């Protein structure tokens, strides 16, 4: 039941993190029974704002008002007590205990100081009913699939009977059927007067589900509109906030026949199967598809980081014989990880140690590290990529995301690669560093280095690439080139396939 009664609003929320201003005076309003989408590029401040509303972070300044009363949340528990719950994108479950224990964690029913298991399982059964799943309350969470775990995460928050529920990318690990059930649940919650904030990269979901859309960009509030007054293009241009074409370097005019890399029938069950494409000299190739379409898995398998079940890779016409990453590196094929902190950087080590990692055996003189060459190398890339750090001995964890990302790229350039696969090369970094990286990639491409970019950001794929391979549930569904590359076409290719799937079912 959508009313005009405001149940939660924020006033001029400001939040800074070391090095970045994440939110710059954001005021938004959520009404009773409203499903309200928050959209924006990575780094726009969506998650930060939601984390502040739900008590994960506290704001530097600004107010949160629930039912027009100002509140101060010290933690998520405070927020839950005030009726505000959040379903996080990342799973945060205790995997070694049962489903029921997770749903009612911190508020288990007790009888004389002992957990009342029977009552607990009944309650959990009840909490899981709307999801129409076959998950049993006494199952151990680690035995469940990621999608099932996501459902538990959602059930946990819903069982709090919150007045405001925030969903941060809730469908990223659900399949379509599970997502449909979730949409049903969200809609019935809204009918009961619950206010919902919904964050998603998938515009199709937003147009299907939401009443209102608020756009954030670079930490600032841009606009809020009724969904009926909007179309997808409009939302995207508000999110990006500029003419996408100008943001990116000019596209390639070269039409070289020289094949830098050929991928033939590469399969890794169950992630993707029979993927083939060819990367020509002078073009930037974009691999796109929704999260879970198998892009990252594909990149890792091409480089030999994960084992592939079948298929062949050719670098400049010669077959890669061994499927190990060391073999790929020695042939000049390298991979830039999507996750700087998890497997990209050595966070407690310094700039120069990070930069020389892939060639630590080569940059030596009689088995000892050659400090002069290392210093020269660091200086060279500092200038070439405009990386800002105070000394080569500065610990890398103190640098901004953009500089960290540039160091990761420098580390790969230092081995004189032939083909680089970059997974989310600009995730979570500011606009300036982003366009510097884009320009650098174009320059490398002109120098004859093969560039493959994986990105969740549609505008990046469209703005940067000369050749796009669209993937869906582990298969290549189409390839676009030159003039065909437009936002509409790419979205179309992804959604068209979804429709086909629906029909075929």
């Amino acid at each position, binding site marked *: 039941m959508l009313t005009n009664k405001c149940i939660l609003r924020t006033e001029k929320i400001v939040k800074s993190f070391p090095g970045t201003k994440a939110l710059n005076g954001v005021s938004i309003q959520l009404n009773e029974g409203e499903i309200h989408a928050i959209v924006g590029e990575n780094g726009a401040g969506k998650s930060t704002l939601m984390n502040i509303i739900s008590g994960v972070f506290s704001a530097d300044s600004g107010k949160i008002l629930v039912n027009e009363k100002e509140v101060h949340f010290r933690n998520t528990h405070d927020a839950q007590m005030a009726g505000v719950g959040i379903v996080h994108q990342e799973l945060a479950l205790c995997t070694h205990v049962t489903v029921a224990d997770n749903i009612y964690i911190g508020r288990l029913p007790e009888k004389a100081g002992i957990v009342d298991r029977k009552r607990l399982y009944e309650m959990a059964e009840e909490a899981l009913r709307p999801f129409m799943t076959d998950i049993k309350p006494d199952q151990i969470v680690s035995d469940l699939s990621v999608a099932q775990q996501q459902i538990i995460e959602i059930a946990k928050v819903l069982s709090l009977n919150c007045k405001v529920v925030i969903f941060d990318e809730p469908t990223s690990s659900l399949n379509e059927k599970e997502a449909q059930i979730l949409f049903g649940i969200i809609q019935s919650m809204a009918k009961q007067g619950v206010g919902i904030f919904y964050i998603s990269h998938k515009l199709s979901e937003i147009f299907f589900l939401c009443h209102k859309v608020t756009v954030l960009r670079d930490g600032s509030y841009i606009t809020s509109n009724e969904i009926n007054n909007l179309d997808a293009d409009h939302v995207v241009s508000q999110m990006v906030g500029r003419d996408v074409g100008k943001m990116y370097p000019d596209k390639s005019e070269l039409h070289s026949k020289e094949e830098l890399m050929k991928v033939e029938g590469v399969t890794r069950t169950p992630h993707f199967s029979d993927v083939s494409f060819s990367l020509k000299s002078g073009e930037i190739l974009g691999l796109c598809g929704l999260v879970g379409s198998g892009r990252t898995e594909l990149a890792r398998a091409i480089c030999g*980081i994960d084992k592939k079940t079948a298929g062949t890779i050719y670098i400049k016409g010669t077959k890669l014989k061994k499927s190990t*990453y060391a073999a790929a590196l020695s042939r000049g094929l390298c991979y830039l990880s999507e996750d700087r902190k998890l*497997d990209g*950087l050595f966070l407690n080590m310094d700039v120069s140690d990070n930069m020389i*990692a892939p060639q630590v055996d080569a940059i030596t003189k009689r088995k*000892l590290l050659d400090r002069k060459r290392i210093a020269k190398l660091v200086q060279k890339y500092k200038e070439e990529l405009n990386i800002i750090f105070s000394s080569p001995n500065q610990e890398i964890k103190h640098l901004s995301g953009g500089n960290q990302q540039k160091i990761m790229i420098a580390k790969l350039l230092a081995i004189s690669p032939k083909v680089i696969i970059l997974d989310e090369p600009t995730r979570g970094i500011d606009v300036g560093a982003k366009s510097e990286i884009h320009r650098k990639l174009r320059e490398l491409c002109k120098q004859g280095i093969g560039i493959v970019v994986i990105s969740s950001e549609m505008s990046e794929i469209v703005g940067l690439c000369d050749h796009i391979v669209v993937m869906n549930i582990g298969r290549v569904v189409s390839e676009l080139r030159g003039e065909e590359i437009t936002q509409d076409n790419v979205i179309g290719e992804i959604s068209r396939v979804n429709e086909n799937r629906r029909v075929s079912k």
Partner: protein
Amino acid sequence: MKNIWGKVKSFKEFTISIIIIFLVIAISIKTPVFLSSSNIRTTAIGLACNGIVAIGMTIALISGGFDLSVGSIMGLSAVLTVVFANMGINVWLSALIAIAISILVGGITGELIGRYGLNAFITTLGVQQITRGAVYVITDGSSISLPGGTESFKNLGQGSIFGIPIIVLIFVILAIAGDFFVKRSSAAMKVFYVGSNEKAAILSGIDTKKVKVKVYMLTASLAAFAGVLSASRFGVATSNSGSGVEMVVISAAVIGGASLSGGKGTIMGAVLGVVMLSIINNALVLFNVSVNWQSLISGMILIIAITIDNFTHKKAQAV
């Protein structure tokens, strides 16, 4: 002048050096005998073997693992050296065979941890028990002496050159070489990468499995060498030679700045850690404190050291 002071302070082993100097001054005021040449000599000889084991342990800690089997391996190599020598094999050759067998044990440990991904704590605990068990079986629980005609070998652990005990010289040379190796070589750099972020090391093309196998071979070989030295020093190997050494050297390395979470540590720090623990034990003896107090006090020092380290670390991160 300020600059020099800054450099001195940024010297990684600064804190522990200061503590040692302070201890030396305080103890020598109380008991002047502490600085007598015979006391210094005894203390130095006593810590040499532990110091050599600590070099290996520090490298294992840097790799993000650790090795609880070093004490048993030290015992195994001491016992094997003596047993082989008693079988009529040349004592030097016996020592080499004992070291080779120990390296083999370390290689197996490394394969289990590196290649099959077993937990370092459990694996090395198991190897510790197995090795110690083997020592008991071989010696039948008793002590075995080196046979006659092994005086040149005994000289290794008992003799001196220019008045300095050979065993201490060997330790100092190994410590300097180890410190240089860890600070400058590309092989040691790979150990830092593995300990700092194993996944990122894999994505830098580093064969992390191979690195780990080598690390445990190294800890075993240094422990085995220390075992040989102890056999030579005492002329006898007992079934409990080397027991408890693992805890002493882990404490020393951590006091010297190594981290149990990997990616951090210096040989000089670990060596200074061993020196500090030995000085304290020595002082307890000189003060006529019952030997029963030693373990209690060493444990407290370890806890204090890591607490201080934890706080200074948090402070550094906040800046």
